[in-house]
C-alpha cells in the first residue's frame, strides 16, 4: 500500500499558553505496531485525541485510513478503534451489555459481532465474566474488556493510550497477545506509552517530546543511534557514585537502578576499569563492573539528555 495508514503533517494544538502538540509529523504504515513514546506531558494523549477527532487541531493535516479526519470525522471514526487512558466503558453495564452497546453504536451485524466477541473473550480469558458489571472488574480485566469493545467493529486503525497502565503482568501479556495478531488482519496499531519495556514490543517507535516527534525508527535503530557503550557498575553508595561518574569526560548519561549504575558512554569514553578505579580512589566500594547490551530505555534516556543539552 502506497498510502500510509496514519499520517499527520504540521499538526498543532495549544491550550491557552500551553503548546501541547507542536508541528507533529507522523507517518505510520499499514500493519505496523507503532509506539508513540514519551514522558508525561509530551503530547501523546492530545495527539491520539486529535487523531480521533475528539479535539480539533489549530492547524495541520490528519489522514487516518485514507480519510481526512478534520473534514469527515464520522467516516474516520468508523475505521478507528480507540482505547482511551481513562476507562471508557459504562461502569454499571455488564461486559456483555457494553459489547452490545458498542456494536450498536458502530452498527455492526450482530451475528458477526457474536463470533468476534467469543473469539476475543476467549483470548482475554473474560468468557466467564460477561455478566459482571464493568465497574466491578479488576484493573487488568477492565482494560481487556475495553480492548474488546474497541475492536468489536473491526477497525483498520487501533489507537491505544497507555493500555497497560496499572495492569498486572498476566493481563498485560494477554493484551499484547491480541495486539500482536492485529497486523496480520491488516490492522495498524498506535500505542502511546511512557514505558520503554512496552515500547520495545512495537515494530517501530516515534519518540515524542514537547509535542513533536524528535526521532523515529525501530527499537534497534534507536538503541544503535543513541547509545554507544553501556557499562553496569555495582557500587555503594550509589548516589555519590552517580554524581562522580556523571562528571567524568565521555559519559553521556547515568541512571541508578537498585544498587547498580547504568553508565552510557561515548565511544571514546572511559573503560570499565577506569571507572572502577576512579570510584575506588574516592573510597567507594565497587563490587563489579561489566559491559552490557544497551536497551531501549538507555536510548530514550540518552535522547532526553541530548535534548536537555541542546
Amino acid at each position, binding site marked *: 500500500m502506497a498510502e500510509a495508514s496514519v499520517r499527520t503533517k504540521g499538526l498543532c494544538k495549544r491550550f491557552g499558553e500551553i503548546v501541547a502538540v507542536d508541528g507533529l509529523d507522523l507517518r505510520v504504515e499499514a500493519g505496523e505496531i507503532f509506539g508513540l513514546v514519551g514522558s508525561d506531558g509530551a503530547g501523546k494523549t492530545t495527539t491520539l*485525541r486529535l487523531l*480521533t*477527532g*475528539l*479535539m*480539533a487541531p489549530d492547524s495541520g493535516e490528519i489522514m487516518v485510513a485514507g480519510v481526512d479526519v478534520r473534514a469527515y*470525522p*464520522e*467516516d474516520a*471514526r*468508523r475505521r*478507528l478503534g*480507540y482505547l*482511551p487512558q*481513562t*476507562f*471508557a*466503558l*459504562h*461502569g*454499571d*453495564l455488564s461486559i456483555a*451489555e457494553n459489547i*452490545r*452497546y*458498542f456494536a*450498536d*453504536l*458502530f*452498527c455492526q451485524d450482530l451475528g458477526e459481532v457474536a463470533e468476534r466477541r467469543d473469539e476475543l473473550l476467549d483470548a482475554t480469558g473474560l468468557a466467564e465474566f460477561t455478566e459482571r*458489571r464493568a465497574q466491578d472488574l479488576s484493573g487488568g480485566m477492565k482494560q481487556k474488556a*475495553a480492548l474488546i*469493545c474497541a475492536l468489536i467493529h473491526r477497525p483498520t486503525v487501533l489507537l491505544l493510550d497507555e493500555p497497560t497502565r496499572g495492569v498486572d503482568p498476566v493481563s498485560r501479556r494477554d493484551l499484547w497477545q491480541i495486539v500482536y495478531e492485529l497486523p496480520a488482519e491488516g490492522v495498524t496499531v498506535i500505542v502511546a506509552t511512557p514505558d520503554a519495556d512496552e515500547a520495545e514490543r512495537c515494530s517501530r517507535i516515534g519518540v515524542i517530546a514537547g509535542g513533536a516527534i524528535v526521532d523515529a525508527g525501530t527499537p534497534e535503530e534507536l538503541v544503535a543511534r543513541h547509545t554507544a557503550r553501556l557499562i553496569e557498575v555495582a557500587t555503594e553508595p550509589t548516589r555519590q557514585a552517580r554524581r562522580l561518574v556523571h562528571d567524568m569526560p565521555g559519559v553521556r548519561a547515568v541512571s541508578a537502578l537498585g544498587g547498580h549504575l547504568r553508565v552510557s558512554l561515548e565511544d571514546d569514553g572511559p573503560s570499565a576499569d577506569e571507572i572502577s578505579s576512579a570510584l575506588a580512589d574516592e573510597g567507594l566500594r565497587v563490587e563489579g563492573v561489566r559491559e552490557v547490551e544497551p536497551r531501549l530505555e538507555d536510548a530514550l534516556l540518552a535522547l532526553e539528555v541530548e535534548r536537555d543539552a541542546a
Partner: protein
Amino acid sequence: MSRPDTLRRTLAVARAEWIHNWRDPRSLAIIIALPIMLLLLYGYAINFELRELTFAVQDWDRSEQSADLIDTLARSDYFTFHSLVETGEQIERLIEGGEVRFAIVIMPGFGEQIAAGKTGRVQVLLDGADSTTAGIAQGYLEGVMRAHSARLMKRWAKSRGIPASAAQPPIQPEPRVLYNPELKTASFIVPGLIAVIMTMLAALLTSGCIVREREAGSFEGLASSPIAPVEIIIGKLLPYAGIAVFDVMLCIATGGLIFHIWPSGDRAALLVVSLVYLIASLSIGLTISSVARSHQVATLIAFLTTMLPTMLLTGFVFPVRSMPKLLQYISQMIPATHFLVVIRAIYLKGTGVGPYIREVTALALISLVFVVVAAKAFRKSLE
C-alpha cells in the same frame, strides 16, 4: 446516514441510560423518592403555615351576639385575633402589610337580627394576592361560622319551643376578596405543585447524564463512535421521558392519597400533555449537562433555571395578569405558564384538553425549540 442505523445508535444510548438509572441507587432515589418527598414537604409546609391565621374585626354592631362571634373565632385553632379596627382603610392597611390574613366586618343590626331569628350579615375580606392562603382561610372560616351558626340556631329554636329545622340560619358570611377577585381554592395547590416539582425534577434528571459520562470517562468511548449529536440527545431523552411520565403518575397518586385531591378531568390526556411539557424541561437539563463543567454545577444550574422562574413567573404564586408587561411576555416563554393552565383545568374544572389547544400547541413548540437547542449545544468533543 441511513435510517435504521440512526435508530439503532439512538436506542443504544437510550438502553444504556435506562439500565444505568435502574441500577444506580442514587438515580433510583431521585426518580422515586424525590417527587413524593417534595410534594409532601411543600404540601404540608403550606398547610402548617395556615394554622394561625391572624384576623382583624370591624364591629358596627357592638352587641352581645357580635362579641360572641368574635370570641368563637378567636378561640378556634385556626385563627388568631389581631385587633378591633374602626375604619375600612385600617383593614386595607393591615391586609396589605401582611399583618392580618383576613378581616371580618359585622354589619349594624347583626345582634337584633339574630335575636329576632333572622339572618345577621357578616362581611369577610380576604387577601386575594395570596390566593392559596385566602382560599384555605375562607374554607376554615365557613366551617367555623357554620358550626357557630348551628349552635345559635338550636338555642333560638329551643327558646321558642319550635324544631330547629324551622329556623333560618342566623349567620350568613359574605366573602369578598380583595386584590384577586376570582379566588382560587385550596385544591389549587396540588396541581400547581405537581407542575413546579416536575419541571425541576425533569431538568434535574437529565442535568447529570452527559456531564456524568464526561466525568466517568465513558463519554470518550461514546464520542469516538460515529454517532451524531442529535442521536445522542434523542437517545438520552427517551428513557427520561418515560421516567418523567412515571413521576407525574407518582405525584398524582401522592396528591390524591395524602391530600385527597385527584384530577377530576381526563387523566390520560393529562399524562400526554405532561409528556409534551416535560420534554422542554428534560431538554433544558440536557443542554445544561452538555456545557457544565461538573455534575454538581449542572445540578445547581438545573435547579436555579427551572425552580425559580417556574415559581415566580408562571402564575403558580403570583397571577400572570398582575405582572408588569415585560414579565408577562417572559412568562409566555416559560412552558410551566401554559402547563399550569391545563393541569389546573383538568384538576378543577374536570375538562379534557380540548379547550386548551392553544396552550398545548405552545407547549409543543417550546419543547421542540428546547430539543433543538440541546442538540445544538451538544459537542462531541473533549474541549
